[in-house]
């Protein structure tokens, strides 16, 4: 039975320089990996006999207070048989391209977790089947709430937020896809259909 530290060493042996850093904190083993080969590594960890990290505990991201530090996407992996946990991190340069490959094809459980990271941090997951905001509404345009540059009370005053909420179209809460299914779209009032067709979704500039 391999420990998490041995798994991390095996990963480094298999992928060489794509493994950026191995560390431990409070007894947890952490491996930082390069964005380009992250998906391949996660697949390797999941499918290689002896590793068997078959359970994706969590996907999240960390934005540090120090603006120079990269934003990290964090995967918590677990092997149910071996009872071992491993944390994989992908550091992303905040001024650069914030995108990583989705692991939805490996773990279906990543669907909503990655959507939440997208919603809260603005990290895009390529090849994700349905990358939409999940906790915030789809027309939310203030930014990404869990980033450190997002103020605790939001960018707008309470009065402005109320004004925007009242100014939004109620149909903005339905996605085009939902409304275009079958008969529902035809039953809408003409003006509403027009607004939807022209892409006006109640966004306040």
């Amino acid at each position: 039975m391999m420990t998490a530290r041995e798994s991390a060493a095996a990963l480094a042996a298999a992928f060489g320089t794509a493994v950026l850093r191995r560390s431990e904190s409070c007894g947890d083993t952490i491996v930082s990996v390069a964005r380009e080969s992250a998906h391949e590594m996660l697949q390797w960890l999941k499918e290689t006999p002896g590793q068997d990290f078959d359970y994706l505990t969590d996907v999240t991201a960390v934005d540090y207070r120090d603006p120079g530090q990269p934003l990290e996407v964090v995967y918590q992996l677990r092997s149910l048989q071996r009872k071992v946990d491993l944390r994989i991190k992908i550091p992303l340069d905040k001024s650069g391209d914030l995108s990583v490959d989705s692991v939805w094809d490996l773990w279906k459980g990543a669907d909503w977790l990655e959507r939440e990271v997208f919603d809260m941090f603005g990290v895009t997951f390529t090849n994700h089947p349905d990358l939409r905001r999940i906790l915030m509404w789809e027309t939310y345009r203030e930014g990404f709430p869990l980033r450190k540059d997002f103020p605790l009370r939001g960018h707008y005053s309470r009065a402005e937020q109320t004004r925007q909420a009242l100014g939004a179209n109620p149909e903005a809460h339905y996605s085009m896809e939902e409304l275009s299914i079958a008969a529902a779209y035809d039953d809408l009032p003409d003006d509403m259909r027009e607004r939807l067709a022209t892409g006006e979704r109640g966004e306040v500039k």
Partner: protein
Amino acid sequence: MTTRTIDFEITTPGLDRAGHPTQVPLGVPIEPASFRIPDPGEEHMLVNIGPQHPATHGVLRLVVELDGEVVQRVVPHIGYLHSGFEKLGEYRHYNQIIPLTDRTDYLSPMANNVCFALAAEKLMGISITERCAVLRVIACELSRIISHLVWLGTTGIDLGAFTPFLWSFNEREKVYDLQEAWTGARLTTSLTRIGGMMADIPDGWEDGLRSFCRDFPNTLREVDTMLTRNAIWIGRTQNVGVLTGEEAINYSLSGPMLRASGVDYDVRKDRPYLGYETYEFDVPIGEHGDIYDRYRVRLEEMFQSVRILEQALDRLAGLRGAPVNASDPRVILPPKSSAMSDMEAMIFHFKQVMEGIAAPPGEAYLGIENPKGELGYYLVADGTAKPVRWRIRPPSFINLACLPKLCEGVLLSDVIAINASIDIVMGEIDR
């Protein structure tokens, strides 16, 4: 006049002759084609359920696409209760986050408090006293019982069984009385502190818990009699919302949802905390992965929780008078009497309240077996008294994500049953 005896058999659907439940082929597997009797053509209907709907167990909105009565697709919409707890936590001292944990999974607040304290202690490298560990086990198991009782009652109502709701809420009230006597609050308990507890249990509290442990299994057995072999209950739950073990792992499910599918994974056994490895209890595992098995797993978990509570009470008797809080002046407030008379104690008190407890740079993830599944707190610290990141691994959020999968091709009424069987709490999903 002659009399005649006619032999005939009285059968109940779902029961064999001995009265044992059999698998009734209702619900899944359904060939959607066989239900298109009045062919609705290509026209599908959209039904909006929620966010204000009693059967969605909170402000959950489901958009259901129907072909006749057969569900083609379910799109859940969440976020109506989003409160930004994770963001708020970045602006709070560690001990100030504990009241926020009450409000995430508000059906088991004490277990959330325990999980946060454990995660912060892992981050800071603090060890707790034996009595504290036993008290926390009691808090966790009481939470499991009240959370499962809410699940049992409300799911029963969703499926048309009203009586178990009254029984389970009656029992839940007793736990709430205990909770109130211990913490002063029924819902927002804020029970733990880093390195210890907010308060020790009051005098005579053990007696109340003992009498609860004595009476509660009787109520559970009555519910068992009412539901487990009830033909309607069986018909509505067996073979509905089936998930195989492999799928359940792939969807990252946890808790009773995972175990009902036959996967033997319980954090208490596999990654023990609070000395759970020293308690004797069994982990119930289902085999069919349907709603019925989820019900059986949760019901049995409550019996097992009572077993753990009894063992914890015995240990508590041996630890009478033992300290509850760790003797670490960095994290534990000095007693009020010495804070008012001793200079050093007053300084510690002042520094802790005003500056908070600084955690060394580092990060820690700690998961515990909450009633709904694996609740995990992931803390990242940079050496200040406030976390850089406080991530909640929300079990109901991840369990709910498989709802569209579970609802493929079922009837509309089964959507309600399946949604109920996941045991969600919106405070935790939206956070």
